[in-house]
């Protein structure tokens, strides 16, 4: 018995030693691939027309449906076949790699891509470009020069606009510029270029324009693309920082989570600024007691203009610019009936 115990202890000790030994440590990635939506025709496929492949970020998303609508409408007008596919979450760049390969195998004439990761997909975009196929980016730029044109929100500027709106709302709701005040931030990913630029833009504008005693809480929440996690993070954050006067969501997921928690806790004292017009944000904006604003991108234009540029490129035209900022409109209770906002909302 003692001998058995001794052997077991010996094995455990050896195992412990090997496990703890830094020289023997190694990383294992056991993440299973996430499901993706393979390509489907977006409009009626007709022989003899150019085949354009559209790769979006999140298939089951109202935001991306608007982009798809813009592309479909352009496809009808410009007489081309459009196929579209995408991933289930906006950080699954590996899923997009699979889709890029599928599109190339299907002899795509051109591709419109909304990269899930600006850095990780740069090499794939280079590859498409090297094959002489037009590549148009939408929503997010890639860190490469090998694309023809990019239609997106300049997120650094959009982040600045969001910070300006946060300051406006805080002042409008009666916060004293001489009093101490702080706001919190939730991001949807630490790796997304879009999100990082919106964060950087927010910080830039805030540090240059906010009253001296108004600060950003350095504890930045990251929900990693998971709205449920965002809810939990927001609840905990408000518990830990009861002094919070405003919350900023850098993209759709965190904005939904922030809006949900603010509504759940009836925090009419909290200013919410986010992105996109999710149901949660729509509900807050339509209730005048909640000071909420969202930065609405012109995503319909992104999809629509991208198809137009693809056809120009296939016809041999070179666009004058490589980067077109489609801009954002600020939507809040006051601007809800502005014609510009109404037009964007109708398209959305």
């Amino acid at each position: 018995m003692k001998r058995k115990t001794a052997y077991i202890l010996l094995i455990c000790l050896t195992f412990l030693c090997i496990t703890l030994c830094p020289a023997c440590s190694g990383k294992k990635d056991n993440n299973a691939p996430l499901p993706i939506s393979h390509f489907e025709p977006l409009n009626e496929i007709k022989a003899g027309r150019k085949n354009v492949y559209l790769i979006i970020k999140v298939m089951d998303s109202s935001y991306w449906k608007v982009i798809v609508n813009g592309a479909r409408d352009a496809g009808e007008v410009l007489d081309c076949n459009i196929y579209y596919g995408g991933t289930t979450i906006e950080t699954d760049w590996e899923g997009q790699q699979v889709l890029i390969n599928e599109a190339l195998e299907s002899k795509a004439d051109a591709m419109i891509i909304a990269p899930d990761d600006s850095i990780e997909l740069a090499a794939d975009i280079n590859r498409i470009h090297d094959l002489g196929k037009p590549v148009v980016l939408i929503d997010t730029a890639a860190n490469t020069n090998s694309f023809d044109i990019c239609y997106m929100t300049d997120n650094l500027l959009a982040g600045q606009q969001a910070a300006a709106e946060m300051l406006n709302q805080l002042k409008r709701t009666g916060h004293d510029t001489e009093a101490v005040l702080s706001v919190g931030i939730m991001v949807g990913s630490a790796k997304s270029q879009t999100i990082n630029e919106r964060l950087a833009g927010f910080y830039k504008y805030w540090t240059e324009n906010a009253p001296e005693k108004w600060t950003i809480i350095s504890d930045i929440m990251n929900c990693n693309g998971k709205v449920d996690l965002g809810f939990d993070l927001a609840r905990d954050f408000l518990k830990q920082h009861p002094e919070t006067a405003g919350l900023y969501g850098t993209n759709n997921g965190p904005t939904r989570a922030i809006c949900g928690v603010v509504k759940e806790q009836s925090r009419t004292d909290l200013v919410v600024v986010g992105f996109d017009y999710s149901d949660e944000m729509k509900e807050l904006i339509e209730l005048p007691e909640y000071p909420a604003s969202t930065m609405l991108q012109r995503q319909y234009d992104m999809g629509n203009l991208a198809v137009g540029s693809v056809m120009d490129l296939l016809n041999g035209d070179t666009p004058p610019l490589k980067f077109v900022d489609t801009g954002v409109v600020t939507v809040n209770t006051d601007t809800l009936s502005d014609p510009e906002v109404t037009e964007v909302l109708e398209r959305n």
Partner: protein
Amino acid sequence: MKRKAGNVIRPKNTNDEKDISFIKGGRSFYMTLILCLIIFFAAIALLIAAFNRLISRHDQKLSGEICTLMSEKMNSSIEFMTETTHGMASVLSAQAFNSPKDIYNVLKGNTKADYLSVGFIDAAMHIYATPEEMEEFEKWELLETAKVAHPVSMSAPYRSSVFGQPVITLFSDFQYGNNQRGYMFTTYLLKDLQEVAVTESLGDKIEIWLMDANSANTIQCVGADEHATGSWTNAYLTMQNVSRKDVNVYEDWLKRVRNLEDNIGTSYSTSETFYSQYCSKISSLPGWYVVVRIPGDALSATMTAFRTYIFLFLAVLLVVVIVLIGNMYRLSKRDNEMLKSLSIHDPLTGAFNRRAFDLAAEKLLFRGKNSGRSCALIFFDIDYFKQVNDQFGHDAGDQLLIAFCDALRKNFSDTGIIARFGGDEFVVLTEMENIRAIASKLDQTTEDVHAIDLNDDKHEGRGFMISFSAGAANFPDDSADLSGLKKCADAALYETKEKGRNGYLWYSEIGSSAPPKKKVVKKIIRKKIIKKTVKTQD
């Protein structure tokens, strides 16, 4: 049924281990081995920790120096760009132009330059550039940067609509016409900074950013992934990835940067890597820093490999040592068992010797004292043993002793210890539930002893009945220590002998008129022995 007495050569006593455990403590070789292994592993862990600390300190110092050099190099590359722009502006200053438009035309005519675009701002702050470039001026407020060019200034990085990439615009003031002050600007790809600053050694490990101290925004210039160049982030978001123990260190570094201190270094761990980080101011871009970061393992790859070899060597050494110790242990265990057995046992009967009995008895009594259980110490003496020796020889005597001990062992070894005190004297110390239980065991022993058949082969001892006398003492009633118990039991034995042998008495019964207790199987054992003696003499 008569039992034949056992052989003189005793088989290994199966009770040896139990007997030994009565004397020695419970710590075994295996426990000692485990203790040694724990000490060994603890020593290895300490060694590795010390080694890691040494590497870490070495890395920190070296990476700090490399960071300093890299930030100086980066600063130099920015200065090189601004000097180029300033040099061009100086050349323009030396020339006479009729109108600002002429200056712009000269600038645009230079097609061999490395910059993406070039232009001119006159004294009235009118911009001479393409319409797209003029839009950039408005969008990114570049005129504000131009105004602080004394003699040069640099814009914060921005994404150019024309080129679709992050760029920087450099401004240099110069004199033209009638002492009018204008600004020349050149736009470069941010990537160009990477090409100037990149170094071949550690090229895929070093990361370099430009950082706005005010907002803590950073834009990457150099990194392991070339596609990451131009990507923005914020240092506070980076801080979320810093390990909890280093968050304060990182935050302190950020505070010092935001307070515009110069040449600030720090080191911290993320969930994956240990980093050294250093920053220095960019002279041409007030409020901006060059930040250089190096992962700790970039410098210590060789040392880390060496550490792995040490660990593997020690692991192999450990296995070899364990195998050798195991073999040595098996050999020494065999010898030790023999020696132990000899040192504590009576070689003839296998019972404890007197010394071993005393040690084991003390332990047993101590246990009894603690648990509150009673014990009985019983002295046995084989009746008329001398005559057996004299009449049937010493071999027969030895056989009798063995058989007698076996009888004792059979009845008492489950609850006690048995010893031979010398000659035909045996002693048993046994735990006792009650006197009746001991009496029952003594009766059974009497029966077993009576059944011993001497020299069955020669038929010389057949028909002779062996008996014993015994004296018992009760612990703790009669005495609470071993020495006292022995005296009591000895007195009881003496009394039994005095009262005719072949029986036993408790110490408490001494002085009573009652005869020794006995289980009567056959009477007149003595007569048979005497009869045989007479025959032999004849």
